């Protein structure tokens, strides 16, 4: 009977049609898709993540990145809203202790298998690895590393000061600043006026004076260390730095004044390695500035670690899951890390990437060498100003004290140290 045949054929046909996607999924033929949010929208950061997206698409994926411009906290507001709505992105930027805090409010992806397959754990600094597996399992992957206390020196300001030696200790730094001042450099220290800027001045000072005191006071919030003499010494050094800065910057971003820095109107800048990317992106040349590790009184490099990372949120969709696996593989790939760092000015997370080849700057080579030395001498610590050492609430309470101190010259270093200890107690 023709009708039965047709019906049977129809049934078989639809069964096949239904089975097809499942079959394709089993074959891994589903198109990987990734929804991602980050704060990287413009400049070298934007260029780098766009390049990463291109690589993702080259591998057959669908790249859906929604940047949230501004500070990291603004990106977090979007992340919070998405998580509360039950629709987290497959992957988002997040870093430091926030990874542990946020992983408690929504389920994350267990990346252990894919990390083991790539042999990634062996090539990541142990302190850094710990931040990305808060409960023992990898749930996030670091992407790039910056040191927040790199010292940028303006070539023209050095010429004005008739100096060519890169300062090693804080005493050298202060001496060079004085030389610059008398040589006609209006503001020996270049800076912006944002909260992280002020925080960086303090963390660079304290870690340079004593990495051990930094670890105890800032990372472990040890009460005794917070009241110790190193904290007062650090505040005293910050006062010197503040006196050399241009007070007129108000609340400007540090990048506003880069031209004055290159022109030699400002001399030295304590900034993260990302400033290299910003300088290069603004059209300045490597000959215009020098990069060295921040001042360290024991002459061994101190590395204030800041590492950007991606955290992966659990999704049920097969294409998103495939996208997460592909993204994880890309982020761990040495070629991708090289591409990314060469755009932004950071250094790769992998300690086995060769930076002696072309494409890397001297500053990046020095940064990578500093990290290696700092890890060896236990002088690699986590940045406070960039939310690596403490969760946001504690960080903000401490930066309040620091930023007020930088802007209010009537506060004595002793007073500031007391206030810092009080702020920590209040935020605990």
């Amino acid at each position, binding site marked *: 009977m023709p009708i039965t045949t047709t019906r049977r054929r129809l049934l078989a046909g639809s069964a096949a049609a239904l089975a097809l996607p499942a079959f394709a999924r089993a074959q891994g033929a589903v198109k990987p898709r990734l929804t991602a949010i980050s704060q990287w929208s413009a400049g070298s950061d934007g260029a780098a993540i766009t390049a990463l997206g291109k690589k993702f698409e080259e591998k057959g994926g669908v790249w859906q990145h929604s940047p949230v411009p501004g*500070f990291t*906290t*603004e990106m*977090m*507001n979007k992340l*919070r809203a998405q*998580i*509360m709505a039950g629709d987290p992105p497959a992957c988002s930027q997040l870093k430091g202790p926030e990874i542990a*805090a*946020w992983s408690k*409010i929504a389920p994350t992806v267990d990346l252990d298998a894919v990390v083991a397959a790539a042999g990634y754990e062996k090539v990541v600094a142990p302190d850094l690895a710990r931040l990305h597996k808060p409960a023992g399992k990898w749930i996030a992957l670091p992407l790039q590393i910056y040191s927040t206390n790199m010292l940028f020196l303006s070539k023209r300001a050095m010429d004005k000061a008739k100096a060519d030696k890169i300062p090693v200790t804080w005493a050298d730094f202060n001496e060079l600043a004085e030389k610059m001042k008398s040589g006609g450099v209006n503001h020996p220290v270049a800076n912006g*006026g944002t909260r992280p800027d002020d925080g960086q001045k303090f963390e660079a000072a304290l870690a340079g004076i004593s990495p051990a005191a930094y670890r105890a006071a800032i990372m472990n919030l040890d009460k005794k260390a917070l009241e110790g003499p190193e904290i007062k010494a650090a505040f005293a050094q910050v006062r010197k730095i503040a006196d050399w800065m*241009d*007070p*007129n*910057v*108000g*609340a400007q971003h540090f990048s506003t004044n880069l031209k004055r820095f290159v022109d030699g109107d400002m001399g030295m800048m304590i900034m993260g390695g990302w400033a290299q990317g910003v300088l290069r992106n603004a059209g300045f040349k490597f000959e215009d500035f020098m990069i060295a590790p921040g001042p360290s009184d024991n002459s061994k490099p101190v590395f204030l670690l800041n590492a950007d990372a991606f955290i992966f949120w659990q999704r049920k969709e097969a294409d998103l899951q495939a996208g997460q696996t592909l993204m994880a593989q890309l982020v761990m790939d040495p070629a991708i890390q090289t591409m990314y760092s060469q755009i932004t000015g950071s250094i790769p997370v992998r300690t086995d990437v060769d930076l002696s080849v072309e494409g890397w700057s001297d500053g990046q080579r020095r940064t990578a060498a500093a990290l290696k030395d700092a890890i060896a001498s236990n002088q690699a610590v986590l940045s406070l100003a960039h939310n690596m050492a403490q*969760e*946001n*609430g504690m960080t*903000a*309470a401490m930066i*309040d004290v620091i*930023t*007020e*101190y*930088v*802007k*209010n010259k009537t506060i004595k270093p002793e007073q500031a140290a007391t*206030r810092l200890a009080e*702020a920590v107690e*209040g935020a605990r």
Partner: protein
Amino acid sequence: MTNAVLTRPGRPAATELVRRLPEYLMIWVPLLLSAAHLVSFSLWTLWISFTPSTLVPVSGWVGLRNYTAVAASRNWQIAFDNLLLFGSAFVLLSAATGLILAILLDQRIRGENVLRSIFLYPLAVSFVVTGTVWSWLLNPGLGIQKLVHDLGWTSFKFDWLIDRDMAIWTIVIAAIWQSSGFAMALFLAGLRSVDADIIKAAQIDGAGPARMYRRIILPSLWPITITVVVIQLQFAISTFDLVRALTNGGPGIATQLPALVVYDLMFQRSLLGRGAAAAVLMLLILLAVLLPYAAWRYVQRRRAAHG
């Protein structure tokens, strides 16, 4: 309704209801929606302020701990002091500027319409724009101070924006620029509504302009003055975007205001419970202004009804 039914016996109540349905819908649906919105979110904020919520809202009870923590923080103390200073300086000065402008405009001058539009125009600009423009004007390295320096007067100093003691006054300046036109418009309406007969009678009695303003016109303006003050005060208490664009609470934390602290706690520090507590404290400050005003209005109305 019962009246309608009684007066029109031929018409059933249901038809009447259908006929008036659009009116009811127009009035009650938006009213209930906005009331529910306002009240439910206020109550929710109140609840959150008693919970240990941080990154996301959680249930639990911590009593007044969030309130004591907020009240003890330097940020809040500075914000509260600033609010007292900013609130009173801004309200008094903007009302005074508005009144002077209104009196000047009221002299039957030519081009009044144009001038009135010019003075009212800043109100059409958003606070973020006002704040950003003034942050350039007041920046010593870019704005007014640099201009005067470039003109040759190099000892001139106007660096309030970066002076932590004076920075709060830059917000007062920008806020007055923005909203004294609004006060002017209200005062102008008040000036125009003074009874012409009284003014004529005063003129016949030989009162000069100064005396007339002092004894007759200004006293009749005081209900409008109270309205201006209350409206400006509630603006002062909820000021956020202006400060964020102008000083962002700086230098340091010298120009914090309560709304900035709420935002900072909730969205920068991820301390929802404390942020909610600060928001409730802000609501209480607002009520401290609005409740006496409502009581005053009530007394006025009763007096008018009985008088």
